[in-house]
Each structure stands twice: as structure tokens, then as C-alpha cells.
């Protein structure tokens, strides 16, 4: 021990769980892969191009912003990549790529960076981008193509390469989503088509099964708080069933609400975004239930066939409030003891 020993000083604890934030982001991206593969199967190369464009521009936007503002490189935390992929999953397969790029820029810049970057944003960035696109290009965003299968992978489904702001070119073979068929024509899509994904919709809306696979994995590994989707599903089941019971002719059964549109994607991958959802368990229950209720209300009584995006964005806005009111009593809370004493006397 003649050699001088240099000691590192630090404050306990000295043990740390090894999984860090980038690892969590990576895992969420992996969980999205089954659904992304499903999108490729149903929509072919256009889906691939949309996803690649969104991810590329997400990284580009954040990278350029970091350079301009002299911030440290944050691309490795994986959150920009995830936002890009999530946004792509909410887009219709026939969208021109320049809109994807613009929407992604908006999602990252306005949805996340101006709030202060990862962890500081109030609204889910991917949904902010999607809301922006829907407001700007309502026709394109609601023009759907029928899903194909893997055999037609190379078949072009849209004018993906139209130039920016040239007249929007609507795909030749357009079709309606299950939700708009239900809303405007009263036509119910069969369960099997909804569950497996053989129905029109956004890239990530088609197969409830593939989304559930990813969701169950994330919940089992604690990457998401399972209380949010659970509360959301339960509320949708209860309210939709109640409506259906009142009038089965006009109101769809609960399974239709659960497995159609963006509900699965939204419930499992958007509502569970930790940054924009409450931290307390009670807050998560309320948050999920609020989204579920809003979804059914918007879909049933609103002007739009789909309401998952707005439901989540609205609840994102009240998430800080939920955190505040849903703070659980602490261990040894004095209030608990006052109650006991009152009992004894």
C-alpha cells in the first residue's frame, strides 16, 4: 500500500439500476416494431418511406436546433427518433412526403423543443405534429387507401413525391375508415378485420393485435404505466356499452370502439408517454379514464369520426393539475391519524 491511493468521493447510493432513459426509449421503439411491420405489410413501400422521412426529419430538426442553440447533442437519447416514428404511425398511407417532413418539423420544434426539450413539453409532440397536419391539410389527412398485403409491397399507393403546395393529389382508389363508415353510413366493420388490421386507416391504426403485443411487453417491463391504458379501455367499454345498450342501432358496440381507429395506438403508445402523463398512480387512473370518456364522446357526438388525438391532447393539458390533486397520502399522513382518533373518542 505504498502507492498513494486516490479515492473517488460521491454521495450514496452507490448502486444504480442500469437501465437508463435512452434504453427505455429504445425499448418503446422496439415495441412499436410489430405494428410498423404490419404497416409495411398492409401499405407497402409508401409506409416505409413515410416512417423513414419522419424519423429522418425528427433527428434533423433536433440536431440543427442543438447546433444553432449550442446545446449538447441530445439525439442519442432516442426521444426524437421515437417521436418521428410515432407521428408516422398516425398518418394515412397516401400522404405526400413533404407533408410528413413539415409535420415532423412542427412536432419536434413546436411540440417539444420550444418547451425546453425532452421532459419539459406539455403535449405529446407526435400528436402536436399530427394535429398541425390535420388542421392544415384536412383532405389529405382524411383520405385513406384500402390496405393490401405483402405481395403488393412495391405498388405505389399515392403521389408520395408531389411537390410542396402543388394541388393536393388525391389517391385514385380511396376508401373510408371503419369509423367514418360507422359514423356516416351506420356500417359496422367486422371484428376480425379490425383486430387483425385488414381495414383502412393510418399506418399504425390497422392491427390492434400487433399494437397490443408491443403494449403488453412495455407494461410487463414497466416502460409504461399500465394503469393508463387499463383505465382508458375500461372507460371506453363502460360508456360505449351503455350507449350501445340505449340504442344498438346508432351506437357501436364497445369492441368496435376499442379496436377501430387510433385507440390502440393512442392508448398504448401516446397516452402512456411519461412526459405528458401524470406521475402518481391515482393521476394515471384519472388520466386514462378522462381520455376514454372523451374518445367515446367525440366519436359519438362530435363532428369528426375519430377523437383519440384530441382526447389525449386535452388530457395532456390537465395532466399537471391531475398530478396536483391526485397526490396520494404519504406514509404516516397526519390526516390518517386524526381520523383514527376521532373513531376512538
Amino acid at each position, binding site marked *: *500500500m505504498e*502507492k498513494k*491511493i*486516490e*479515492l*473517488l*468521493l*460521491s*454521495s*450514496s*447510493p*452507490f*448502486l*444504480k*439500476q*442500469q*437501465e*437508463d*432513459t*435512452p*434504453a*427505455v426509449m429504445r425499448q418503446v421503439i422496439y415495441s412499436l416494431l410489430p405494428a410498423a411491420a404490419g404497416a409495411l405489410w398492409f401499405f407497402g413501400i409508401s409506409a416505409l418511406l413515410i416512417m423513414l422521412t419522419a424519423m429522418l426529419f425528427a433527428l434533423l430538426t433536433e440536431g440543427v436546433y442543438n447546433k444553432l442553440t449550442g446545446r449538447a447533442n441530445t439525439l442519442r*437519447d432516442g*426521444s426524437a427518433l421515437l417521436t418521428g416514428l410515432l407521428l408516422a404511425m398516425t398518418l394515412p398511407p397516401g400522404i405526400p412526403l413533404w407533408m410528413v417532413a413539415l409535420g415532423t418539423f412542427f412536432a419536434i420544434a413546436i411540440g417539444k423543443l420550444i418547451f425546453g*426539450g*425532452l*421532459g*419539459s413539453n406539455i403535449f405529446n409532440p407526435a400528436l402536436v405534429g399530427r394535429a398541425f397536419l390535420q388542421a392544415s391539410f384536412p383532405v389529405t389527412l382524411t383520405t385513406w387507401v384500402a390496405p393490401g398485403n405483402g405481395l403488393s409491397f412495391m405498388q405505389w399507393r399515392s403521389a408520395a413525391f408531389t411537390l410542396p403546395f402543388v394541388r393536393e393529389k388525391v389517391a385514385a382508389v380511396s376508401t373510408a375508415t371503419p369509423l367514418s363508415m360507422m359514423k356516416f353510413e351506420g356500417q359496422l366493420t367486422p371484428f376480425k378485420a379490425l383486430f387483425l388490421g385488414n381495414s383502412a386507416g393510418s399506418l399504425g391504426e390497422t392491427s390492434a393485435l400487433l399494437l397490443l403485443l408491443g403494449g403488453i411487453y412495455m407494461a410487463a417491463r*414497466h416502460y409504461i*404505466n399500465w394503469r393508463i391504458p387499463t383505465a382508458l379501455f375500461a372507460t371506453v367499454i363502460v360508456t360505449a356499452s351503455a350507449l350501445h345498450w340505449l340504442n344498438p342501432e346508432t351506437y357501436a358496440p364497445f369492441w368496435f370502439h376499442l379496436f377501430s381507429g387510433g385507440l390502440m395506438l393512442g392508448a398504448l403508445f401516446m397516452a402512456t408517454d*411519461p*412526459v405528458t*402523463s*401524470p*406521475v*402518481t*398512480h391515482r393521476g*394515471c387512473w384519472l388520466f386514462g379514464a378522462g381520455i376514454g370518456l372523451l374518445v367515446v364522446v367525440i366519436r359519438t357526438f362530435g363532428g369528426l369520426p375519430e377523437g383519440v388525438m384530441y382526447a389525449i391532447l386535452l388530457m395532456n393539458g390537465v395532466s399537471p393539475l391531475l*398530478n396536483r390533486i391526485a*397526490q*396520494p*397520502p*404519504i*406514509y*404516516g*399522513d*397526519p390526516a*390518517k*391519524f386524526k381520523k383514527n382518533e376521532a373513531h376512538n373518542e
Partner: protein
Amino acid sequence: MLHSMFSNHLPTFRHGIHPPQFKDDTKDKPIRHFPFAPVMVIPLAQHIGKPSVPVVREGQEVVRGQLLARADGFVSVPQHSPASGIIKKIGRVPGITGKMVPGIYLEPFPGSSQEVMEGRPVDVETATADDIIRAIQDAGIVGLGGAAFPTHVKLKIPEGKHADTLILNGAECEPYLTTDHRVMLEQAPDIMTGLRYLLKATGAPRAIIGVESNKPDAADNLRAHIPPDLPVTVELVEVKYPQGAEKMLITALLGREVPSGGLPIDVNAVVVNVATCAEVGRLLPRGRGIQERVITITGPGVEKKGNYWIPIGTPLRYVLEQAHAAPDINRVFLGGPMMGTAVSSLDIPITKGTSGVVAFRDAEAFARQNKIYPCIHCGACVEACPLFLNPSKLGILAKFKEYHAMASEYHLMDCFECGSCTYVCPSHIPLVQYFRMSKLVLRNEKAKKIHV
């Protein structure tokens, strides 16, 4: 116990974490004696409370077990000589925080037989509760689990309260540490003797020994040693950190919650560490003072890992030499890795509160985990906090220096710094470290106000 009636799970508290145990290296190593260091360093304050006052002078020859410094008031304990030798100096010695603190340097006689001086025995049958409490103070006993709070202060039941259960804490939930485990295996008779004193001192009609279920051998051994007339049961509790925290163990065993800002006695419980109880059972019948304690020496930087009886005041450098520490160790901490303290110097001594010495040599692994990401509000810390605080919110408030809001709205002062939040945080935010700092700022502010 209620919990266990309704499910197959062992009793425990809610939330908490499951860190790796690292106990296999030392849990089967019997406690061995340790040689005397050439110079012993004895700080006067090895406990929470007022420092002791020296009663010896420089150059004086002392016998092992002789009183070196007396207690100063009720919340204070005396120090006894860990070895027969000569008092070299009374002055300032290196303390655990890195500051110099008042203390005594003692040079043991090399050839001495190191017989321990006997004092006046305390007979558990004839002594009163107050006699026992005084004797425990006179023996210099503090909580050996790590907090080093004077044991006799805990045992003194305040006016108007009563204890219905004495809990012996054998949870030992800190990774790496195996001292309590070995004590329960090797010193069961001492623990039972100690229990008689503790039950009488507190007036509690029964005792429960809580042992984490990763030490079934210890629980079996204790059960086998319970005398027929002693109202003691041994209960297994779930392996979960921080099961050994007083509040958590009370909740696990009794289903009661200690009120915020309160003490165990507010729910009629007194909690004492098993090794502390063994010490009471060993020292009081002989009227001796505490001169050594059991310590786990372990970690990747140590070759002769094990559990040792180490004299109080042995410098860390000597301890590590004897345990054949690697020459390139770069991190040494006292206590467990969750709540222990990293030391800045190897000159500081083993004190009564030291339960373990863990040495590391892996700078690389340590640096890798240092990158801090922004809080993503994942709530992992909220799910870990055994007190149901909101570390995520507290961490954000700490960053903005909102210390008063942390205390008044988010119960900062309840935090006992178990470090579970920091352990689970995927963004590597040093939460508990923020909280320690915030509490310090608030305490300093309060102290200033009193002086103005």
C-alpha cells in the same frame, strides 16, 4: 401479520426496491478477531448527540475497557478504551466527513494480553428499568445498525406512552452487509440475554425479531435459542430494500404506520438492532463498556472478505491492509452501498456506527452511469419511495431551489434518505443527493434564525 393472513407473501411494506444482494461472499464467513492497530483513533462523538468529555490525560496508561470519556448529558454516551495502551494525544482526529473532530489517539501496548477490565454487573432480575437504561448508557451502547443513535434514549419511554412490542431488527436489507446475519447465527444466546434487559427497560410485554427471508438459517437458529419463559417470536419478512428502516419494519410486522414527524413509540413500538441487543446481553452482565464491533469487510477491491470483530478506533488504512485490499482501490465506503458514506481519507477510524467497509476498484463502471438526462416523469421514483413521497416533483423543486415548498407541500423532512429514488431513476438524476442538500439548507436557515 395481517398481510400474511390474506396472501402467501411474507409481511412487508409497500413500494421499495430490489437491489442485487452481493452477500454471498461473506455470509458464510464466521466472525474472526482482528489484530490491534499500532495507533487507534477515537473520536469523542461517535454517536448522535453531544460529544463525550475526556476523563484521561495525555501520557496516561489505560486498560482495555477503561472509561476514556464520559457522557455529556442524557443524549450522549461515554467512550471506553478499545485496547490497553497509552494515551498519546488528546486533540483533533480525522472524522468520517473528512473534517477534523475532537478525539483521542491511543497507542496499544504491543505485548499486552489485552484483558478486558470488568465493571459492576447489572443483574436483570434485581435491576429496575431505570438501572438498566443507565447501565446501557454507561456501556456506551449506540445503534449498531448504522445510525449510531444512543440506545438508552430510545428505551426511555416518554411520559404518557407505553410500548406494547419490542422489535429486534434483523432485516439487514443493505446489500453487501452480513454482520447482523453472522451475529444472529453466532450470538443467539447473547441476543436472548439482551432481550431480557430490553424488555424490562421498555416494559414491553413481548418481542418480535424481524429477519429478512434471505436469512432462514439465522431465523431458525434464533428460534432454537428462545428460552421457554421469554415472550419472543421470530418472523420472516420479505427481502426488499429498505425493509430494515424502523418505520418499514414496524409496518411489516405490526401493520402500523408511524405518524409523519413521529417516533416508533407513537405507535407503541420500540425498535432495536439485533447486534445492539447482543451487545447489551454481553456487556451488562459483566459491567463492561463497548470496545469492538462486528464489521463486514467486502467489495471487489478486497481479497480477504469476511466478518470481523474490529476494535473501535482502528484506522481504515490498517483495516484494508489486514484485509489485503488491492493497491488500486479507488472507492471505499462505510456502511452499505445504499445509505453508506464514501470516505475521503483512509486515516479515519472505525467507529461504533460502522457496519461495513466496502472497497471498489472499478472506476470505469462508475463513470459510465454518470450522464444525467432530463426527468421524463416516468414515475419510477414515485413507485419506489417507501414513504409515498413524490421524489420527481421534489427533484424539480430542488433544481429551482424551492426548498420551502419542498418541506411545506411535499414533506421533504419525512425523507430518511434511503436512496431508492436515485436507485431507480432511469435519467440518473441524483434525487436523494438533492434532498440531503435541500434539508441541509433548511436546517442551516433554521439554525441561523435561532441565533439572530
